[in-house]
């Protein structure tokens, strides 16, 4: 499958994300934030970084980049979209996912190998995992604290839309230890930790992030 990886000004992890897409057995297609063009891709990854310098709010400016018009339209039609870290922030700013990401409760940037539990393996991006599988991937953020009102949190949990939850340590104050969520349809996933940094043995905490990039193929061939 062709998976587009969007580069915004200030994006950092587009190269790693493209590499993970390729290792996952898919074709990575570079997308530019300023183009009204998805180049015929089957899915889109919004990678991590500090797009537009995190000015105003993380993701607030990027959310209005030209390419996002197409991403939002395609997401509403069911195209798989994965937002990692800054990408997750962009998805909440675009209202494709509920809630918001605010500054870590302890006020420090955090960078660690983080254990997660994949609670929903029915999304387009997590079908390669077993339900409740525990994985360790890289986590690095300054504004990764997931917040939403109680009704939204209850709704997400009630509908099984918490995709991943932090285990052992809550690294940023996220409510109910939420690390990632999905939309009603399961095609849009936002995740604060970085699976694209855990796809090769050479660097990072292992290869347990690879499932996010093999799930699409798995869901097609299943």
């Amino acid at each position, binding site marked *: 499958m062709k998976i587009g990886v969007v580069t915004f000004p200030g994006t950092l992890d587009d190269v790693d994300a493209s590499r993970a897409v390729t290792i996952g057995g898919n074709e990575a297609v570079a997308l530019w934030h300023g183009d009204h063009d998805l180049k015929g891709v089957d899915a889109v990854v919004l990678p991590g970084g500090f797009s537009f310098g995190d000015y105003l*709010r993380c993701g*607030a400016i990027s959310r209005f980049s030209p390419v996002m018009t197409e991403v939002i339209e395609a997401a509403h039609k069911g195209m798989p979209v994965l937002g990692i870290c800054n990408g997750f922030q962009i998805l909440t700013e675009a209202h494709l996912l509920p809630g918001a990401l*605010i500054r870590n409760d302890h006020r420090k940037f955090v960078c660690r190998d983080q254990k997660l539990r994949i609670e929903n393996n029915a999304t387009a991006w997590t079908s390669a995992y077993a339900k409740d599988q525990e994985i360790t991937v890289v986590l690095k953020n300054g504004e990764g604290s997931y*917040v*939403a009102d109680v009704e939204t949190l209850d709704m997400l949990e009630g509908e099984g839309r918490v995709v991943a939850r932090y285990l052992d340590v809550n690294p940023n104050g996220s409510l109910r230890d939420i690390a990632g969520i999905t939309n009603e349809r399961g095609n849009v996933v936002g995740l604060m930790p970085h699976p694209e940094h855990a796809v090769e043995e050479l660097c990072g905490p292992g290869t347990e992030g690879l499932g996010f990039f093999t799930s699409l193929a798995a869901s097609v061939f299943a």
Partner: protein
Amino acid sequence: MARVVVDVMLKPEILDPQGKAVHGALPRLGFSGVTDVRQGKRFELEVETADEATLAEIEKMAETLLANTVIEDFVVRVEDEASAK
């Protein structure tokens, strides 16, 4: 010319780590008596006239871009001419 000010604050129930940091620094600097600090943003918009239509448009700007209404509240007000200079 007129100046319209948009104040954006995190909703009361949303944790404000920056405000907490400022609050924590005050006693260390010898300032006492402050029981809480919340940090927000102030936008100053210069417009030709602050008429009803303009203010309605600015409300829309605030809702669309300046504030994220999931976590923030905003207030739009016209600053008086004297202080606008």
